[in-house]
């Protein structure tokens, strides 16, 4: 009994497709526009889910039976306002980022790239196993008499 018609379905499909496409771009401004378009699509979907066109739900202008469903409208109204808040905030964030870095592109995470190029993890036990062993035998009786910390700390450089 409540069905989204073909025209509106096409509009929804186009809005969501364009939104996702822009979201997948690298330019921060395009991504932001993508979010706005997705927001439009979502608001429209909310409203359409309430039913086909009907009379505005204002008492005295029509019979209650002719009203459009008011609840989705109230929810969509909230959504519109919040989308606006989100948009302005992201806009300010993108602007600030551009002021600071001079580009409005989403960069790949360099640390992640570095991880991908690595053969083995940082502090790897395998790497620790390479190289000469300590001069002193830590299990010896002499080691148990030592009162100071050894001056040379193997592996990660001197401690002090």
């Amino acid at each position: 009994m409540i069905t989204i018609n073909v025209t509106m379905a096409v509009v929804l499909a186009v809005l969501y497709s364009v939104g996702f496409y822009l979201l997948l771009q690298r330019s921060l401004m395009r991504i932001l526009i993508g979010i706005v378009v997705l927001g439009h699509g979502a608001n429209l979907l909310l409203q359409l889910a309430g039913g086909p066109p009907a009379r505005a739900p204002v008492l005295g202008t029509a019979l209650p039976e002719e009203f459009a469903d008011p609840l989705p409208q109230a929810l969509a109204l909230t959504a519109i306002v919040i989308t606006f808040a989100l948009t302005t905030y992201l806009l300010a964030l993108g602007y600030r980022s551009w002021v600071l870095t001079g580009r409005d592109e989403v960069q790949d995470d360099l640390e992640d790239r570095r991880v991908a190029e690595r053969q083995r993890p940082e502090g790897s036990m395998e790497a620790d196993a390479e190289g000469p062993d300590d001069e002193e035998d830590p299990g010896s009786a002499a080691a148990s008499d030592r009162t100071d910390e050894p001056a040379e700390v193997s592996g990660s450089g001197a401690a002090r």
Partner: protein
Amino acid sequence: MLALVVAHLVVAAVLPLVSRRSRRAAFGVAAVLPAATLVWGFAHLDAALGPGLEETVTWSAALDLELGFRLDALGLVMIVLVGGLGALILAYSAWYFGKDSRDAPRNSALLLAFAGAMLGLVLADDLLTLYVFWELTSIASFLLVGQGGLHRANRRAAVQALLVTVFGGLAMLLGIVFVGESAGTYRISEIVAAPPPGGVAATGVALILVGALTKSAQAPFHPWLPAAMAAPTPVSAYLHAASMVKAGVVLVGRLSPGFADRAEWWVPIAVLGLVTMLIGGWRALHETDLKRLLAFGTVSQLGFLMVLFGSGDRIGEVAALTMLLAHGLFKAPLFMVVGIVDKVTGTREVGALSGLGRRLPGLAVAAVLAAASMAGVPFLLGFLGKEAAFEAFVHQGGARGWVLALGLLAGSVLTVAYSARFLWGAFADKPGVEPVDPRRPAAGLLAPTWTAAIAGLVLGSVPPLVNALAQPYAEAYPATDATEADYHLALWHGLSLPLLFSVVALAGGLALHVGRDRITGVHRALRHPLSAQRGYETAVAGLERAATQVTGRVQVGSLPVYLGVLLCTVLVLPGVALVTGGTWPQDQSLVSSLLQLPLGLIVVAAALALTRVRRRFTAVLLVGAIGYGIGGLFVVDGAPDLALAQFLVETLTLVAFVFVLRRLPAHFDTQNGTGSSPDAKPHRGVQLRKAALATVTGVFVAVAGVVLTGARQQPPAASGEFVARAPEAGADNVIAAILVDFRALDTVGEITVLLIAAAGTASLVLATRFDRKREAGGGTPEHEREVLG
């Protein structure tokens, strides 16, 4: 019993305070509790050898968890090792560590904490309780082997010990759950009394065995034990000879009465135990470091104990308990001897020690007593155990009995050989080697060594004492004939095959030692294509590399890739559900109101154009067109409030965009006048793929919207209520009534979101303005100056 365990841990926690005053006193204080435990154990001798002393503390009644303890014969023998030897070794440590040693405070506290955990482990009668203490001892071992973590040898050995034993521990936990759930109880005594049948329980038993084999350093998991010799010698003597490594053997001893006749239990125990005994003995023959020689000897003896405890044979189990006690009583003093030798000469190398026996005859005699017990010389405890072991398998007969008997004989030959090698290496005069000039060892070092060695002699000379401990444990196994029922430990069983075995072992071992040069030649000629240590290293390195590669593949650091994965997931999971489960509504019309057609066309055209534009300003105008178009659609739908909000918001958004666009370059692809970055020009194929994915997902959302709204059968329940009650809110407009009355709290939340967003936006904009004010020509990046004018 729980109080005793907790007391260990509490005292260990305050021990560092004592260490500040005097390190020696800290070890002294630490030795009190293990000694008290020994006294406590023997005070309950009757109960332990009879019905057993039980104690249950409810841990969590709702989860049916309890801490269950039980003192029985096996527990009592372990208390001799954990408490008695623990007290001796702690006393020994007081003189082993220097007066101001940096390591002493840590070791005294950790050793005592370990003693508490180990005590809990050997007394536990509940599998989950046992598991908790099991892992606590692993952690204590990690900390004690790792010491300060300053030396690579310590770090590597500690990590290896932890990885191997915790791997086994986790397998064991899974096995415990399998066995406990299929038995309906986690009580060891109840499980053993009625062992659960079935495949789940069999898998669980095999998994528990993995834990026992790793903890007791059985092949192929054994290399962690020799590596752990990087720890100070008292630690090695206590954890890695006398007590902790026995945990696996003890667990096998606890469960064997229920499972010894099952192939999944005894076959791996017998095979791996025997292999471990031979490998350990063979390796011990070629070690030049006395401590590592003993470590491989320990590996070998643990294999021996494993075979005995898994035998499920009345005489075999008598031998098992005797050897368990014997091994503690000879291996701990041997380690202490090594510590003293190291202390007074500064070396543990076989090749550097000469003439020590003549200089320190007292120490040499103690070492001979202990080593002779290890070799199985009469009047010492080791002899009693070995005789019983040979008797058990010779008496058992059959293929299994003979293979094990001859295997143990071969292992014993090796044991005698490395015992002789130890004595020769430490004390003999060696031609061509400068005799050592030892300091005098402190009495505090000698006394504990002698005490343990003498205990082995006394117990070995008076068999009825050990018999009284071993028989009650072995009685859990049925005697199959009169020989088994009547078997008692004794120095003289008459001329018999086991006695011949003992003689062969002693003679063969001594012959091996005499021909040691030739044996070394054989050892050198043999190559080891299969090295367990290399296997461990390869496994760890492979794991590290695999983890790095998986991380590199999964975490690529590219936002579009992550989003793509998310969208694909949406398509695969709900998408498949939609295609298989959804039905397309029958009554769908082309258009509900003719006005929808032109408005929809505007929105679609603007949206499609948005993907092609290169100028930022055009893009923003197109977004505006979409927004106004949707506002129009709201009007058609009968939602004037929505349309008003939409027009207002769209206008404000446009204004905000224009403010920002003033500062940004006109085109998307140009970067602040410095030209485009290397990857600014996106690849065409990549863009096509993005477009395809976006289109499919967008279509999916629209189809889902149609199908889901079409699935609705009844008119909305609440909407009529809102309309009917709107007059009570004093509003003609139902939407307004909902927003400011019925759902007013939602609106407050919405206003809060707006305020937070406004505050965030303002702070970001003001930050830029603040920079501009502060900027006096230097410090800020060039582009910023350019931007801010």
